[in-house]
């Protein structure tokens, strides 16, 4: 399985994300933001956390319109898998690949701590290894993680079972405690918490490893 991990100026979780895929057995190709196409044969695109383009204008806004941004949108449009974590989630919403937007935390504070999440659906390659109702602990580290969506959009997400993760205790004001959402075809996941920072016990927990193992099995014949 081949994963492309994008690096924007200001990305700071790109290496962690690459290591997450590699430790799970995937081949990782690092892709620069000025590239205009993804490498051939890629099974999934990883959009990492950080502060792409200094968070200028809005978090993720400029990255979502960068040269590689269009290639990612095209890839997802063809049914490709993608995962956006933290700033990557902000970028995917700015691209319109995922609904809603991430606003300033209700407390106005940057929050960096491990949080407990409830897996809200089993129906995705990302969440199937945990199962609906399971609890996992991933770190969060964000200032703008307050998920917002209009009431009709929220109803659609809930009705289509597209909430992937919810916070056990809402840290940032997100509507319906939402920590991560899926695209309509369930192949694009955006989430604020960092599974790639929880892949081995030395990091304080390894709950994220199962997610990467599931992704590493993509496209591999059983």
């Amino acid at each position: 399985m081949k994963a492309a991990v994008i690096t924007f100026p200001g990305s700071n979780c790109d290496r962690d994300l690459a290591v997450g895929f590699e430790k799970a057995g995937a081949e990782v190709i690092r892709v620069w933001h000025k590239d205009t196409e993804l490498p051939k044969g890629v099974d999934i695109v990883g959009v990492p956390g950080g502060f792409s383009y200094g968070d200028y204008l809005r978090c993720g806004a400029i990255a979502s319109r960068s040269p590689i941004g269009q290639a990612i949108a095209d890839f997802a449009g063809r049914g490709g898998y993608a995962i956006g974590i933290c700033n990557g989630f902000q970028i995917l919403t700015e691209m319109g690949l995922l609904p809603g937007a991430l606003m300033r935390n209700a407390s106005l504070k940057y929050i960096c701590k491990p949080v407990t999440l409830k897996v809200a659906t089993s129906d995705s390659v990302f969440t199937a290894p945990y199962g609906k109702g399971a609890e996992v602990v991933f770190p969060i580290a964000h200032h703008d993680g307050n998920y917002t969506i209009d009431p009709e959009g929220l109803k659609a997400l809930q009705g289509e079972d597209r909430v992937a993760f919810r916070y056990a205790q809402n840290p940032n004001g997100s509507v319906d405690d939402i920590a991560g959402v899926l695209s309509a075809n369930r192949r694009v996941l955006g989430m604020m918490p960092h599974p790639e920072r929880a892949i081995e016990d030395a990091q304080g927990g390894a709950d994220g490893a199962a997610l990467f193992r599931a992704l590493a099995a993509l496209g591999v014949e059983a």
Partner: protein
Amino acid sequence: MKARVHVMLKDGVLDPQGEAVRHALGHLGFGGVEAVRQGKVIELDLAATDKAAAEKEVVAMCEKLLANTVIEKYTIEIA
């Protein structure tokens, strides 16, 4: 030709920063501030000389980049 774009959160979208400013004003003794909404102003120097064409282009800029129309609205002044 100059354009000035005002970007504001849509009505009904909670503005935590505006709320914080409102609280701070209250602490400073400014009573009676019932609501604060915080937005941004973006000034553009344009080569265009035709006002209608400039406005059309700035609308496209707002839709594509300057505003996130999921949560924000914008107004444009051309001078």
